[in-house]
């Protein structure tokens, strides 16, 4: 009689398992295990987990290694600064960035962007980053029916453009090609410069002109009657991240012959606290038109906006208007774009490309929202010396631009006249176009740095504030002028093309409207930026690059005086910045290149002794696209 113990011990089970295993080994000797054998068909069909199959994946991305070194000789008067060596240019840039696109069905896809970055600190601490990249996870599905194409996308980050006054971001078309960033593409030698020479354009970043959005996006295109509809719900980087704040925007478009009409609205609202929060938000309604009238290209947009912050009891409403007339070449012998803008002081929309200079509740100066930060990084506040490509509120502006060529010389000329609508008390703000990139790497994301805490740095740029005296303010509204010249020359050397580009911009502000820009002391603040890029290819594989930049910023007696040098008791804003750089591009394949850059930067404002800023940076970058 078998005596089964009362207690089925764990060891008995283990014995059973071991016995089974031994039996398997003994019995299994007869089965051959060569990998060239085909799959046995009598096996148990045990399928673990979800269904899987061979599905096509699209994988694109790039590999980028960067070595960066920087030494500041003088940092706002401080000369005790170390040599910095890093594997990124101060802003985390991926080593390996891949976009994976999987298409489970013909009409839906899942897009994934992953990055990994290794700061190469040491072998002990594992600081390597592996995570989803900017474009995160986007799920998208759609259907193409006879009634139209429908698409639903959810996730982050997506890029949306719904009209200049609703959701968009600034487009800087004329720029220097010397400095690269993580997302700059890789072309064979001279291709980028050639494209820039002929059309001022090349493969831009994926968010060029678009606003980032995390959330839901619905699109219905090609509806009957040539109607398109797009709607988004979610958050943009300009919604307060730590509070319940979201945006809902939509636009309906109708095409009629050569014209397209758009009606759109945007509603950004939130609560300024999780408990008993009070509402704040912005509502915009916009009407736009795009098309051709006779031979003119016309693009216009009219928007009405209301903003309110209940906790401050502040509200306001404003209007924004813009019209672009593109006059073709045959009318005037050169093409001319005329743009008219008028944006009243109370119109504000952080999610668009508009610079907010007048509503301080929605700026980085704000004290609302219980200390939460409005992500206003790249946007200065106050009387901003806006470069040609930026539009600000509280302004009425006219902008002219034209392109023409003389032989091998291509010129793009731009001119802006603008005046404030209301004379609001504020500082004057100007950008450091030439030295700003270097400043933003040295002092990252600082809201008040440099001498007198006047400099704010943001992603790859910096701006500075200077006050106006009360007499200056009492003189009335200010006018702004800007001139921009982008001259491009393409020549030939040793059977290879070479390029010389010049980009210069002059910005000034003075009292009252002025048709022509003011120079010298008649301008309250004047800023001029000159940048020169040269590009000399040698053979098909190598190119030598030179860069020179100059920025000169001056203020007159209506700017707040500072302590100057010993010779003068007072001195007004008088800054001079210079940058000199050189580089070599070595192309290995059509989509992989080795870049070497070296740049010296120097900035000194005579009115502030501690403003001296001098140093160099150099990078070596290997980028491979696939």
């Amino acid at each position: 009689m078998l005596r089964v113990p009362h207690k089925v011990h764990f060891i008995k089970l283990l014995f059973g398992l071991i016995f089974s295993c031994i039996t398997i080994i003994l019995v299994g000797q007869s089965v051959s295990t060569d990998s060239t054998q085909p799959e046995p068909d009598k096996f148990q069909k045990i399928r673990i987990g979800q269904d899987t199959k061979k599905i096509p994946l699209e994988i694109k991305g790039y590999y980028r290694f960067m070595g960066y070194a920087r030494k500041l000789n003088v940092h706002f008067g401080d000369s005790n600064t170390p040599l910095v060596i890093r594997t990124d240019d101060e802003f985390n840039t991926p080593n390996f960035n891949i976009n994976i696109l999987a298409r489970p069905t013909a009409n839906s896809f899942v897009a994934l962007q992953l990055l990994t970055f290794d700061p190469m600190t040491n072998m002990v601490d594992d600081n390597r980053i592996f995570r989803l990249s900017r474009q995160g996870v986007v799920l998208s599905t759609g259907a193409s029916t006879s009634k139209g194409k429908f698409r639903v996308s959810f996730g982050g980050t997506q890029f949306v453009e719904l009209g200049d006054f609703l959701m968009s971001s600034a487009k800087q078309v004329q720029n220097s090609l010397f400095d690269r960033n993580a997302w700059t593409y890789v072309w064979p030698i001279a291709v980028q410069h050639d494209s820039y020479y002929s059309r001022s354009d090349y493969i831009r970043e994926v968010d060029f002109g678009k606003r980032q959005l995390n959330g839901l996006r619905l699109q219905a295109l090609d509806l009957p009657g040539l109607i398109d509809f797009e709607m988004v719900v979610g958050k943009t980087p300009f919604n307060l991240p730590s509070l319940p704040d979201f945006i809902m925007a939509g636009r309906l478009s109708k095409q009629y012959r050569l014209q397209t009409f758009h009606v759109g609205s945007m509603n950004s609202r939130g609560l300024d606290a999780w408990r008993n929060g009070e509402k704040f938000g912005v509502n915009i309604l916009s009407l736009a038109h795009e098309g051709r009238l006779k031979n003119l290209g016309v693009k216009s947009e009219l928007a009405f906006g209301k903003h309110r912050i209940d906790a401050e009891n502040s509200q306001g409403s404003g209007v924004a208007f813009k019209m672009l007339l593109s006059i073709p070449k045959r009318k005037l012998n050169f093409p001319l774009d005329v743009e008219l803008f008028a944006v009243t002081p109370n119109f504000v929309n952080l999610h668009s490309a508009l610079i907010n200079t007048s509503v301080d509740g929605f700026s980085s100066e704000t004290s609302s929202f219980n200390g939460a930060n409005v992500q206003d990084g790249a946007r200065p506040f106050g009387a901003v010396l806006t470069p040609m490509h930026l539009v600000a509120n509280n302004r009425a502006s006219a902008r002219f631009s034209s392109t023409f060529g003389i032989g091998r010389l291509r010129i793009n000329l731009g001119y802006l006249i603008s005046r404030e609508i209301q004379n609001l008390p504020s500082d004057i703000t100007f950008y450091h176009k030439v030295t700003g990139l270097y400043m933003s790497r040295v002092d990252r994301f600082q809201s008040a740095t440099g001498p007198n805490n006047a400099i704010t740095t943001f992603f790859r740029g910096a701006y500075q504030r200077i006050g106006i005296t009360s007499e200056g303010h009492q003189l009335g509204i200010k006018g702004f002028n800007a001139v921009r010249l982008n001259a491009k020359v393409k020549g030939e050397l040793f059977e290879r093309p070479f390029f010389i580009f010049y980009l210069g911009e002059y910005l000034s502000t003075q009292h009252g409207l002025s048709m022509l820009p003011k120079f010298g002391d008649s301008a309250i603040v004047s800023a001029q930026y000159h940048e020169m890029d040269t590009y000399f290819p040698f053979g098909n594989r190598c190119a030598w690059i030179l860069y020179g930049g100059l920025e000169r910023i001056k203020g007159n007696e209506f700017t707040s005086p500072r302590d100057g040098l010993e010779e003068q008791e007072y001195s007004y804003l008088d800054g001079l910045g210079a940058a000199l750089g050189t580089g070599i591009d070595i192309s290995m394949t059509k989509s992989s290149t080795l870049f070497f850059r070296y740049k010296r930067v120097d900035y000194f404002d005579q009115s502030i002794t501690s403003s001296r800023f001098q140093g160099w940076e150099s990078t070596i970058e290997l980028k491979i696209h696939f």
Partner: protein
Amino acid sequence: MTLLNPSPNPWILSRSLVIILAFVGCAKEEPLGPDLSGLYGELELLTAFSNNSPNGVHFEANEKVEFSADFNLEVDYTLSLTGQSSGAKYSISGKGANLSDVSWGGDCDDVFFGPMEWVHCVLEFDDHPQSTQLDSVFVWEQPDLSFKGVLLTSFEDPSAFSLTSGDFTEYLETVNNAPDAVEGSTYMTGFGSGPATWFGALRITMDPATLSNITVADSFLNLHLRSEFEGSATVIKVFEDSNDDGIINSGDDEVFTTKVPIAADGQWQRMNLPLSDLSLDLSGNNVAVNGGLLDLDNILRLDITISQVGTADGTFGFDADYIILTPDEPF
């Protein structure tokens, strides 16, 4: 059963079935867990709370008061007795569905129950505070509890003790006709002042013959003390006649002592001192003679001295009454 011929072997199956059936539980009738009615039921008194002495209890005739009540549940109860004149208290706790074994023979917590007084009886229940019951019983005579041990003195008989004063003694007498005595109507009171530790003593001669059932390991010296002087204490001294000469010779006879502080709250306290707390005194001339252990067969005298906890200059003293030795448990 082998892997190559896997048909079920009936022998193993049947054995497994037997084992399985052995585990299968059959319904039991005895309820699981604690009694719910005891936890959540409403308390009802099936018979009222009463006692067997409606005309009072005669403790002199060795009567006892027996309380009775019947409940519908098993409950935790506490019966508290309070003398209305003497202020004496006593309580009995228990658990059950009735009060069948609850009787009172005159025991008390501190002060004795007095003659000719009403005693209020309060029956309370921990889980049912609204069901408190009240009764009362008349006590004709003061209970005599000296049968519990060896009564050394209750100060009624002046020959049982003597009082010795010292330089610092201010007052040391017996108080007669005292209604607030612990037992009877007499108690001792004494106090002294100065920076000393001996302000007078109560001396009781001990006869080992009376201490037949008293042992050092298990027995208790019980005394009732009351003080209003902060810092007062009593030093208990037991003198042996180590050399059998009938008198106490310092340096020849062993002395055992312990000091007990007294709380100065003006209330009678009963102190139950285990005899094992007495330790050999080696101060002054005192010596160890017979191994340093208290031998009750040689015991000659017990001193209860008025003392203080420290050595401060102040007034210290106390009242004392009813001193008794009990063999197995405290009084």
